[in-house]
Structure formats: C-alpha cells, structure tokens
C-alpha cells in the first residue's frame, strides 16, 4: 500500500480526495499542496451570497470540525510546478519536492481573461476568493456594471449586482444565452430573468475592446456602440490548470485525460474535478465536467483506483444548480442537441416549472426552476434509470 499520497490542489476536489482516502482506510501520509494562501473554501457563493455580503469567509469555509482527525499535512501558498512520473515527485515552486507513492491531480480551472484587458483597473474575472473580495469592493463604489458573457457565473454576478442597486448590462455573443447547457428553448426562458429584474441583455453582440486608460471607462461592441462602465466582469469560461504538467508525461487534452475511473496514463496518478477530462462511454470522448457535485463525488472513485480497490464508477447523472434573481435553477443529466424538451409541471411564464428532455421517448435530463421537490424526484429517477441501463 502507498505510504505517501500527494494531493495537488486544495479546493473541493482535493479536500474530497483527502477525506475519501481516510474513509477508504488509507492510513499513510497525505500532503495537500495548494497555491492559494487560504484554507479550502467553497466557490459557488463567490458569485452569490459572498459577493452580496450575505455570507462571510467562515460561512463559506469547506473545512469541517472533524477534518482535524484526518491528519493532513497542508502546504498552502505553494505552487506545484512539475511532476516526475517515475519517482512520483511533485516539484514545488520553492525548489523543494514532495516524494509520493500516489498523486491526486486536483488543480481545477481558472477564469479565461479577455485579451487586451491586462492592467486595466475595474476589469474583473471571478474564480477565487481574492477575485471576489476585489470585485465586491469595486462594486460598492460603482454605478454601472457591464458583464461580458451570459453564462451561469455572468448571470449570477449580474443578479447579485442588481440587488446591490447597480445598473447592469450583460453582453452575450451567442444568439441565446445558456443554449449550450440547456438548449435554446430553455436558455431563452432562463435569460428572461434578466429583463424581469431590470438587467439589460444584449445578445449576438461581440466585444471589440475595452476603452479607458488606467481604468476602464466603457466597453466597445463590434457594431461600434460604447457602453459606459465603472466595472466590467468577464465571464467567458474557464481553462483547466494543467500547464504545470506539460513535461510530466501525463496525457493532456482539454484537461488531464483519464479513464472512467480517473486513472491517467501514468500508474499511481489520478485526476479529479475541474482539471480532469474523464472518458465517457456514452459520449465516446473525454468530458471535462465543471460542476460542484462532480468535484465532491468523483474523488471517491479516484481514490479507489489509486488504492486498487473496487468501487462503482461516478454517478452517471451530472448535476448542477444556479441561483439567479432569487430563482433556483437545477439541471441533471446529459442533454444533446436533438433531444426534445417538454414542460411537465408549472409554467415558464410563472418562472416555476419542471422540464424534461427526452431522446427516443426516454427522459435523459431534467431542468427545474423553483421546483426543488419535483426536481429531486426526477433526478433520482434519472439516476436509477441510467444505473439499470448501464
């Protein structure tokens, strides 16, 4: 059995891996390496309660009272810069290394930035606690916010900023926001929340550039329009943090490539959470899932793989939620472009409904807005259906 496991990345997936190691009776040393100075914290509140100052740092801490019993060696504020595949050594920025028998890669993702925005004050991305604190301070003194990208994080920031009294414009390059994850019909329904709450949404519009010297003053669109802005938030997706593995021999694509049980091509090295792209048998390609519940649950499988024990593969029904303008949006399953969506309960106009996506007459995904009880039932049913069919 391995005597030292190094976990690289001290956030949800990394902490979940450390907990899973102990749950699965591993009693060796566990070293958790994380480049942020903070103890693990929860990211979803950063665009919601924490940004609105309704949750404190304490509220969003991921650590639980029992975690002291895990006996973890923390290396916070420490960046991993390389991995030696033969000795399983994790190389650190200060020149030292952690020799390990097993390695869990959990370095997550970072926000994609808008090129040309470097060094311009008032322009933010939102991924880390430090990002959230900086944005929160800037919003407090601002009147006009422009959000670039109407994905989940962009929509949540817009919603929070409205509660703080800002004038908000959201710019989306696609004709319909959230069409990727939800499909055009349901994406359009969710996008109506913006107008309901006084946020201006501009779709099918590209950003030509940011205007301002020293500090941003406006966002210029491809049609020449200038939108004045005190603060700009760029929410255009995330990039996996895998560059540090470039010379390691670990196979990389859009993330660390793994099999369905989180094993990389290097024995003794597994990858989990937002940095990992696991093989999906149903979709016949590697899929990188960037959802909270996935980062929480998947490490149990990775750890079993590392310890060489048998355990079921991860829940085959991805799940995520988003809170926007007081509406609770929940989605579970895997949607494809040709699926047919039907509203089974409630109505889109009331902003309270349950919609099911069907393929060849079988439900494959479910979307709920303000329907937690029904949604939970459907999510369960989907999980049971997928388990019996696989």
């Amino acid at each position, binding site marked *: 059995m391995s005597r030292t496991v190094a976990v690289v990345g001290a956030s949800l997936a990394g902490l979940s891996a450390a907990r899973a190691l102990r749950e699965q009776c591993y009693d060796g040393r566990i070293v958790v390496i994380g480049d942020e100075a903070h103890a693990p914290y929860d990211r979803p*509140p950063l665009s919601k309660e924490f940004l609105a100052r309704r949750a404190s740092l304490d509220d969003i801490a*991921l650590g639980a009272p029992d975690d002291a019993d895990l006996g973890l060696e923390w290396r916070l504020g420490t960046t991993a810069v390389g991995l030696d595949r033969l000795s399983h050594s994790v190389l650190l920025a200060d020149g030292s290394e952690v020799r390990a028998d097993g390695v869990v890669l959990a370095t997550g993702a970072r926000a994609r930035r808008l090129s040309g925005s470097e060094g311009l004050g008032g322009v933010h991305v939102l991924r880390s606690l430090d990002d959230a604190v900086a944005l929160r301070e800037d919003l407090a003194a601002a009147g006009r916010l422009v959000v670039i990208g109407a994905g989940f994080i962009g929509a949540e920031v817009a919603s929070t900023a409205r509660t703080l009294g800002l004038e908000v414009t959201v710019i989306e390059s696609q004709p319909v926001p959230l069409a990727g994850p939800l499909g055009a019909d349901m994406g359009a329904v969710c996008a109506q929340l913006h107008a309901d709450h006084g946020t201006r949404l501009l779709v099918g519009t590209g950003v030509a550039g940011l205007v301002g010297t020293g500090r941003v003053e406006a966002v210029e669109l491809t049609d020449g329009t200038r939108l004045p802005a005190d603060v700009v938030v760029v929410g255009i997706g995330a990039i996996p943090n895998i560059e540090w593995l470039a010379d390691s021999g670990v196979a990389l694509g859009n993330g660390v490539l793994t099999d369905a049980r989180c094993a990389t091509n290097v024995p003794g090295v597994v990858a989990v959470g937002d940095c990992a792209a696991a093989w999906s048998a149903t979709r016949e390609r590697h899929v990188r899932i960037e959802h909270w*519940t996935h980062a929480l649950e998947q490490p149990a499988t990775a750890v079993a793989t590392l310890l060489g024990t048998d355990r079921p593969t991860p829940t085959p029904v991805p799940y995520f939620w988003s809170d926007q303008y007081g509406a*609770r949006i929940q989605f579970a399953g895997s949607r494809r472009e040709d699926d047919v969506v039907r509203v089974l309960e409630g109505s889109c106009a009331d902003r309270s409904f349950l919609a099911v996506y069907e393929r060849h007459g079988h439900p494959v995904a479910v979307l709920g807005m303000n329907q*937690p*009880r029904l949604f*939970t039932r459907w999510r369960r049913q989907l999980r049971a259906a997928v388990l019996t069919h696989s």
Partner: protein
Amino acid sequence: MIPVCPTTALPPGEAIRVEATEPIAVFNVDGDFYAIDDTCTHQDASLADGWLDGCAVECPLHASCFDLRTGKVSGPPAKTPVRTHKVVVQGGTVYVQPGTAADGAA
C-alpha cells in the same frame, strides 16, 4: 404544540413543511413521524423538499444527509446538525412541539 395535519394527510414517504418561528419539516417514515428544522444548515434549502431515504433525508440542493432521529449530518457540505423536535400523534392528528428535542436525539 402546533397541529400539523391529520395523519392521513401525511402518508409514508411524504414530508410537510410547518411554518413556525423557524420552519419545521415533518416526515412519515413507514408510519413513524419525525420532525427536524426545515432549513438546511448549509444554505437556504427546505429539507421537506428533500429525498427521504430510510431514516435520513437528503437535502434537495447539495445532497447532505440528515438523520431524522438525531438531526446529525452524515456528509458534506453541511457541517452542523439540525435540531429535532418532538412529534405527538393524538386523535388522528400530528402535532409538533418546537424546541423540545425528539426522544433519543443527541
């Protein structure tokens, strides 16, 4: 004591939310009634909307499980237990006694 509903209105496997100073969720597990705080200790979700699995309820939002008998949480993300409340069944009606822990609760 707060009257909740007739026993027949809360069949096995079902839950109901009761408005009190702090809302309470009452569950019927195979004919036994349990009451706990309705609001999850993690964030703002109603546990009455959760999934009943044996003597535990799974939060509808992020799936922390709470033991209905003790209020204890069995897994992350919630870190603290919910309070339990005593349930009394009298003359075909279910009542809760807010603030009085259920027998056997921690």
